[in-house]
């Protein structure tokens, strides 16, 4: 049965019981201005044309859908992969950042602020800032900076200032806190480029819309090869690549599956809560203190999930299973050996689910579309440490 899903939220940014705008007063007017500016731009054909043009000429879209023949034969299900790893900067993050950089320029903002976990959004933000001549500051947790040295170097080479975050978990959660603090202090001349479908309205809507190119393309590409996905699978930290690919299939019969890290299972282990600007499902203790997530992948180390995903889970339109670090490492090895694809540790969560559930939750004969949100180059140090016999 089809369920209407992934439409517009309410004017205040509510997807059912999730979303809203819970931020300090200094940045509320900026959020209101941003919501109006995004609505105006997204309805402007000239903006859409420029957005499409940059994605085509600069980031290399459309990204292909790859048929995984060897893996399909092994698993007994047809596996198709949407290749967001082939985007410039190596992940889907660039789609959103190009949209927001164009919007920042349209709004007359000269300074571009971002938070980053694995560094993929930070690298994308630094790249777009260089392309459009914006000053760029990226907040990144100290723990993540150590895990992702290569991305720190890339951001700095691109001209961005990387500010180490030393508070709290020193990962994505606290990078987001520090980015919000910086925005409060500099809101008059700074555009905040949030990297995922979380945060205050309009970010969950806006980031989904800038990422929906993944799903819209994939839907057309699948039709062109006469494939009708029965399952669409993507990893979920905040959930931007999942929102992007789900958006293209929300009105089909495909099962939408967002795979979380077992140590950051907001949907299966979280409760409704309010942090980082919206009400969503959140890992928290009995008193309401946010619990630190754990994942081998810095990009999924997030104790919450975008509010629209919480809504999709609540209405039953999407499910959010988990996979373990060990399953993720196995998936990296299998994809590398069987298809010549080295996925980012984040994206490997989606593959790990498919490897585990093919023939079980995913019946034989199914057509599974997996979003490979990024490539694994940035993770090679960690992968080499963990994959036995990788060399």
């Amino acid at each position, binding site marked *: 049965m089809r369920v209407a899903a992934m439409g517009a939220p309410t004017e205040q940014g509510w997807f059912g019981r999730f979303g809203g705008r*819970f931020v300090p*007063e200094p940045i*509320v007017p*900026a959020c209101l201005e941003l919501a109006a500016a995004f609505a105006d731009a997204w309805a402007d054909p000239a903006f859409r044309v420029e957005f499409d043009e940059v994605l085509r000429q600069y980031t290399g879209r459309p990204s292909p859908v790859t048929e995984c023949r060897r893996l399909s034969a092994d698993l007994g299900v047809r596996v198709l992969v949407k290749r967001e790893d082939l985007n410039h900067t190596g992940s889907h993050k660039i789609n959103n950042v190009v949209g927001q950089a164009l919007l920042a320029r349209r709004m007359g903002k000269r300074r571009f602020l971002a938070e980053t976990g694995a560094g993929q959004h930070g690298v994308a933000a630094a790249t777009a800032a260089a392309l459009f001549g914006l000053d760029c500051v990226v907040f990144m947790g100290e723990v993540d900076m150590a895990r992702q040295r290569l991305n720190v170097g890339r951001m700095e080479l691109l001209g961005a200032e990387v500010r180490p975050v030393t508070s*709290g978990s020193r990962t994505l*959660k606290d990078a987001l806190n520090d980015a919000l603090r910086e925005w409060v202090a500099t809101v008059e001349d700074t555009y905040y480029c949030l990297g995922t479908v979380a945060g205050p309205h309009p970010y969950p809507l806006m980031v989904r819309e800038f990422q929906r190119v993944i799903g819209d393309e994939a839907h057309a590409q699948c039709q062109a090869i006469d494939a009708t996905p029965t399952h669409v699978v993507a990893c979920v930290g905040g959930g931007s690549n999942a929102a992007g690919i789900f958006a293209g299939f929300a009105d089909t019969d495909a099962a939408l599956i967002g795979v979380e890290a077992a140590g950051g299972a907001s949907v299966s282990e979280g*409760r409704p809560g*309010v942090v980082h600007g919206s009400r969503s499902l959140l890992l*928290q203790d009995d008193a*309401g203190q946010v619990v630190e997530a754990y994942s081998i992948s810095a990009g999924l180390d997030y104790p919450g999930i975008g509010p629209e995903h919480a809504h999709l889970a609540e209405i039953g339109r999407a499910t959010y299973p988990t996979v373990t670090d060990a399953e993720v490492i196995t998936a990296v090895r299998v994809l590398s050996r069987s298809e010549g694809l080295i996925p980012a540790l984040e994206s490997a969560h989606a593959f790990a689910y498919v490897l585990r559930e093919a023939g079980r939750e995913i019946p034989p004969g199914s057509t599974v579309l997996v979003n490979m949100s990024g490539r694994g180059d940035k993770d090679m140090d960690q992968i080499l440490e963990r994959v036995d016999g990788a060399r």
Partner: protein
Amino acid sequence: MNLRSRGRKLLVPYVTAGVSDNWLDHVHAAVDAGADAVEIGIPFSDPVIDGPVIQAASVRALERGTTPSTVARDLARYRGDVPLIAMTYYNLAHNLGLAEFADLLVSAGIAGTILPDLPIEESAPWERAAADAGLAAVLLAAPTTPDDRLAEICRRSRGFVYGMGLLGVTGERPDLATSARTMARRITAVTDLPALIGVGVSKPEHAATLATDADGVIVGTPVVRRILESDDADQVATLVAQFRTALDTAAPPTRAFAAAG
């Protein structure tokens, strides 16, 4: 909660609850040194409007196991005669349930609340729960708040209006931002509620400067920094007394206050 009737410029220091075994001694020291109310910070894991000092105090308090319930338990020993105002983040209220949270605060002797991540678009349920429990839900205004929005904030706020003195997180600054006086004037122009300025009120002379335009000041980080540096409550007493003197010198208390005092 009626602060204006005290007849002098209002001084509201902030203490992070649970930051040390003797945190309540710091509250009492502030009261004895001339506070008109005390803000009780209930620590939250993700304090987005707080700078490094109050973040550090929050971490220390959380590591000591501080929760809204332990704060309420500790406040049973509060012996001061000025109102206490809870400052925390919305998730702690949301988590417990708004009515339950309001009742917990009232049972602890708290008179009002400041929830800085709850703007007016989302605050109506809390305003109702607070009113039902007899709590004053204080709302915040910022230098970026447009006039029409400021008017609505002032209309809906209870107890006083919290004007943010600058764009930024809590923390000490060498100079008082020019936006602080402007904020105070904008609030007093549209409401009879007291206009209290907080964030960036770092030195007694800042408070003295604000005495012309504001009804009072909120002093957080300078107090908390002293608490982090030393368990000695005399440090807090000395600081609060300096702010008291600065305010009273700049704007002498009314005769009514002297008679009541």
